[in-house]
């Protein structure tokens, strides 16, 4: 089966959770005898190696880890929240890619491809990995960093975030897009109910994300002498590193350490604040960004992973990676996190943003080594990429056999 994966950005330049999900799925599909192609978008106008296709659109075909990729670039600045783009649609049709099924892993920039496939009656699946379709700011956080439960058909975007009133059209476009695909899937019940609550009438199937166990090696025996907390993720406000730092500074445990993995370049102002917050505390160490191959080594270095997000997390892959490595997770009780982390079983939960509560939890595990051991022994390793691929393959087969 020829499958076209659509994703807003892709390796090797971009490597967040959605890209990893797309790559993992495409590669496993190859193993299972299918022919995947990734169609992606390049937003950096200065990126080289592109050839002209039509109008403003340029393309660059390449292979990433045996997966064929086509990157599209439009030579003008666009707003990130626009759902459809006629020029992209025309260019896609000109591109003449042949495939039996479309799987949208993220519809940003390339949403019009869905419209084109609908016209050509090519079946399609859309996986919601974040709240972009609902929120033009992508995070469901308003301008003063407060959580928002949804756009209310765009009126909230106008009132809370100061968007012009034509943002309502975007909401309609997003809903149209959802209607166009044959099946909407997501990895958390949270996101499923979020999208339904905000006006999507169709069915949303929950297919849990998974882990490629090639990048997992459980060599730790769990008898670490010192407690090392880990933070792995982009250092941006919504990921909540400030909550963790605030909590950690309150904890007076001299042997407890905190290691922070993640690029400091996404939001340099925030990153500087974080460095400022941790100044003078030798227990805290910033380790910078890392390659996926180093994940087992990083997981070996930490005893607990903290996910202090203050926005609606869908189903963080790093949480699964930690569990796959047998590392308990302390997470905000927000979004899809509590669907995996059960308080006192395989990790702990605290009220999102509440650094006092987090500090209490850290103190609790710092004082009693047994707590970690207990949590560790209760961890059920998350499922494998092969299983997720099987779920999707069954869906693909059903859709194409219609």
């Amino acid at each position, binding site marked *: 089966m020829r499958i076209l994966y659509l994703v807003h950005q892709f390796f090797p330049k971009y490597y967040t959770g959605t890209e990893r999900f797309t790559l993992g799925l495409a590669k496993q599909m190859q193993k299972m005898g299918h*022919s995947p192609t990734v169609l992606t978008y390049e937003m950096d106008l200065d990126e080289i190696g592109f050839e002209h296709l039509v109008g403003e659109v340029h393309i660059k075909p390449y292979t990433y880890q045996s997966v*064929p990729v086509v990157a599209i670039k439009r030579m003008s600045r666009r707003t990130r929240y626009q759902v459809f783009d006629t020029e992209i649609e025309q260019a896609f049709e000109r591109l003449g890619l042949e495939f039996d099924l479309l799987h949208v892993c993220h519809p940003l920039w390339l949403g019009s491809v869905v419209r084109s496939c609908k016209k050509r009656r090519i079946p399609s699946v859309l996986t919601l990995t974040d709240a972009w379709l609902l929120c033009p700011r992508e995070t469901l956080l308003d301008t003063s960093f407060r959580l928002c439960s949804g756009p209310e058909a765009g009126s909230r975007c106008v009132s809370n975030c100061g968007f012009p009133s034509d943002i309502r059209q975007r909401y309609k476009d997003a809903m149209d897009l959802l209607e166009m695909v044959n099946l909407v899937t997501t990895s958390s019940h949270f996101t499923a109910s979020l999208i339904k609550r905000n006006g999507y009438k169709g069915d949303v199937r929950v297919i849990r994300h998974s882990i490629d166990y090639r990048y997992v090696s459980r060599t730790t025996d769990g008898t670490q002498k010192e407690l090392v907390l880990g933070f792995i993720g982009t250092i941006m406000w919504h990921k909540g590193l400030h909550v963790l730092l605030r909590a950690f500074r309150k904890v007076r445990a001299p042997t407890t350490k905190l290691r922070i993995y993640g690029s400091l370049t996404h939001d340099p102002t925030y990153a500087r604040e974080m460095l400022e917050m941790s100044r003078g505390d030798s227990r805290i160490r910033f380790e910078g960004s890392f390659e996926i191959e180093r994940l087992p080594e990083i997981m070996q270095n930490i005893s607990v992973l903290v996910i202090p997000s203050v926005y609606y997390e869908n189903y963080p892959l790093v949480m699964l990676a930690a569990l796959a490595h047998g590392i308990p997770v302390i997470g905000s*009780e927000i979004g899809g996190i509590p669907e995996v982390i059960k308080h006192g079983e395989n990790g702990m939960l605290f009220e999102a943003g509440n*650094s006092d509560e987090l500090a209490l939890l850290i103190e609790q595990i710092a004082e009693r080594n047994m707590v970690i051991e207990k949590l560790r022994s209760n961890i059920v390793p998350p499922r*494998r990429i092969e299983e997720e691929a099987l779920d999707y393959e069954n869906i693909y087969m059903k859709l194409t056999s219609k």
Partner: protein
Amino acid sequence: MQESTPKYIDKDVDLREEGDSRTQQVLMVGENKKVLEVGPASGYVTRALRERGCHVTCIEIETKAARVASKFSNKMICGNIETLDLGKVLRREKFDVILFGDVLEHLKDPGAVLRRLRPHLKSSGHVVATVPNIAHGSIRLLLLDGIFDSQRTGIMDSTHLHFYTRKTICELFRESGYRVQQIKEIKVPISAAENLKIDLGKYPQELVEALESDSEATVHQFALTAIPARMSTRARIVSEHRTLVTRELRSKMSRRLLSDPLSMLLGLYSAREDLQKAFPEVRKGDYGRLIDWVSNVIKNRTDAYRLFLRHAPWYDDNPISSEPQLERLREELLSRIANLEAHSITLENELVSQRKRATNLENELQARLKAAVSERDSLSTELRSIRDREASLENEVARTREHAANLENELVSQRKHATNLQSQLALSLEDGLERRKELEAAIAERELINTSLKERDSRIRELEAERHSVRTNLIYARLELDGIKSGLGFKIIRFYGGIIDRALPDGTRRGEFKNIVKVSLSIASSQGIATMASLAFEKLKRREFRLTRNYARLADRQTGSSELVATRMEGHQTRLTVESPLLSSTKPTLVSRTAMVSGWVVSDKPIDEVRVYLDDEFLGLAYYGLPRPDVGLAFPTYPDALHSGFQKLIILDERVRGQHKLRITVQTRDAILCEADGVVSFEDSPLGEFVQFPLHETQHTQNLNTRVSVIILTKTPPSDFDYSLERIRNQIGVSEIEIVIISSGPNDLSYYAKKYGAKIITISPSEFNHAATRTFAAENATGEYIAFLVDDAIPAGNDLLATMVQTLADEDVGAVTVRQIPRSDSDLLYCQSMWWHYRMLGFNHDRIVGSERIDELAPEKKRAICQIDDVCSCFRRQTFLKYKYAGGYAEDLELGIRLARGGYKIAQLYSVGVIHSHNRPPSYHLRRSYVDFMALSRLLNYKVLNFVAWSVSSEKDLFDLILRTYSSLNFAVDELRASQFHGYDIQECFKTLRDQLQVHMVARKTRSQNNDLDNILHRIGEMIGYDGTESKEFSQNPVTEGYVGSLGVFQEWLINTHKSIENLEEEFVDTLYKLFAIQVGHQLAQFASHTESKHREDDQNSLGRFLSQGI
């Protein structure tokens, strides 16, 4: 040396006029001398000197004067004596006399000039200088009048830089290393002093007299001679001190000695004190010697005095009347002298140590000098390189100039062109002017239309504003509701959360309990809110929006939440309202890390900016100009009232909690129009509107009330065995799972028994048999259903067991088998063989298959129907024990055939599966393919190749053909690598492979980079006694044909799944060798079955046993 307009005395020197300073100069120089004259002006003195036989070299600053004077001088140097390089212009010339005629007072640093010229003075030579006396009576009188004006000539010449008295001129010479020998005074009466016009009559008679009695007051100029001091500076100073002191003492003592000895002593002491005061820089050691000398003098004088007394008894005034008194006095003096002597010794010692230090310092200085010299050398080399660079730069400059000239020429031609264009332009301009007139008429018309349009626009705006206000009111109502909602709900939830936390200890699943409470509370509160909302809506509906009341309502809102500041200045009025956060309020505003400051402001003066200050720190400008239709309606007379809103997002960082002073100022570019401030109090609220979504309860499929035994065979448990067992344990949909592990290896598996409650059955490795061992395990299992799993298979999904068991609900189904999903790290070979295998079987969907005439079917069809894969299969225990596994290898297929014969159907499920694959070396594939073929040909009656037709008569023949193919493959791989895999083009790569394989190689290349394959081929060669010598001719090569066939399958799969082999090159080559290994095994097996019919079973050679090992 004059520096301004020359003011020369244009009169010849007359040696008879002694009052003329120039006469003195000439006389003091003497006759037939070699003279250096500094500042000769027009050369009058020079001329007189030449007449007296002198050889005169002149240095003059003024070019004009130098030209005149050069007529008289022997040599004329024109230049500034202070800056001239004397070494260059005078070389090593030495002079008898150096003459400064009225020059020193004009120099900036006369001392330096004197010192620099000293080397040019012969040791017997002297300096002659004349300088004006500033202490002349006329100057003194003028100073009394407060006048110190400069004049064109004379003492107060405007170009004088220094003013000397007798004392200071002497000091100048002394300090410059000269000793003044002779000073002559050139006198001019006070009243006659040049052009100063002193009227003596206007001064008191006594003053004038006192002045005139002072001999210095009439000295107009000093003419002096000086010789170079020969002593060291310090010695000279000391000697000068000595002279001075002597003189002083002499004068003091000569006056006092005669009066009384006591006064003399006092004089001596005061003299000493005076000395110390006068020369603080003189060293104490020197004083010692000085005092030595002085005391000698005193001693002599005292003796003399005593003599004097003895011989002059008539001296009446003598206060020392008796000898003893004198004696006492003398004793006293002597003791004092002794003290002084002791002191002088200590001072001397000190001098010695100081000298040592000086020597050290000198040494150090020399070392530094050396360093400086080396530095100079390096600098000079650097200088050389810089010069070289300079030269190259000069060349470049020349080139650039040339280029510039070219450009200039071009410019000229361009200008000509421009002039042409200009004339053309002028013509078209005229044309354009006419058209403009036409346009102007059209514009006037358009303006008329515009005004009417504007009128319509303003009308529309009014209407829109009205609509906006209504809508805004609605939004406010909704916001109010939201506030109530979040405030109420949150408080309750937090309150109960706290209670639960305190009440329930750890580990009591407090989190879940809390969630339940939260959910029920949120439902309860949302119901309450719904009631409240409907009430509010009713209220809203009743409310009438009268436009006239807008202002009143605005004010209403203000009273609660913000304050209105109105200012009137210079006839202007401004109104400012801060709506958020609440100023001067005790109720805290809930904020996260940031807060929004918002409000509106109107003024009849244009507003330029709205500034926001927090705790008096300027945070920035607010964004002003946001639409505020409500304000526009309330204040229609103000301009911009419709867009009077402002907003500023402020970042609070760490200072969130607590009270802060917030100030907002509204300003034009240079004045503050209006200002509002107050205390705001913030409280940290990390969450805004937090929506708790109900936790999803996993929908369990209804549990089948049955026990399933999962039987796993293992020798050495794989690394992720734990993971597999975990997944089995977590299967849902069946009420009980029994895990039975059969171990034929040495490992202790009690860990698994403990952790997963597994039943462990250990057998010895020799007892192991694919069929019998599985059957044995099934007999020991207790479940109604039994599922067989290999130890490295992982169930995909947690409903695998349930699905299989449910499928077996159909009594016709005898066995369920599921699909294998390659692991994410599996190699290309495994993926492509599974794909090919399932394609061969037509297995790409869930199916339940069976046939009543199973034995009549073709082998492939038979295999497709009877396929059971014991990587994962499931049976009713009863059925299984009835049939059991039998035979050896391929026991699963064998059982499938028997089940089919028994009328059972087999369920083959494609939508569920196990994750399973191996990455094995070529040698394994070779053996495996041998064993597979042997088993399958027996079970399915495969037809074998007719080797006779291929003229292959022995194993050696076959092996020779194998090596030929292998050799071609090795050459092909080399070529692929050399061509860099044809740009990763799949088709091209396979074309090369096929082309190369068809070529019969003369040269043999039976070693590849694949050691594993090399080794097993070598072993096989050894076993069949192949020595490589016999090489007969074959028309065709069945090995190559078979291999090319399998390459075709590989190519098809690769094209189906990949677009290129980029990043896969090595894996691609690996796969080629593994495929070859499979082909070798296959061929060997075919040949073995071909000869089996001829030979007896146990004759089956040792090769067969070797190849069956470990499979």
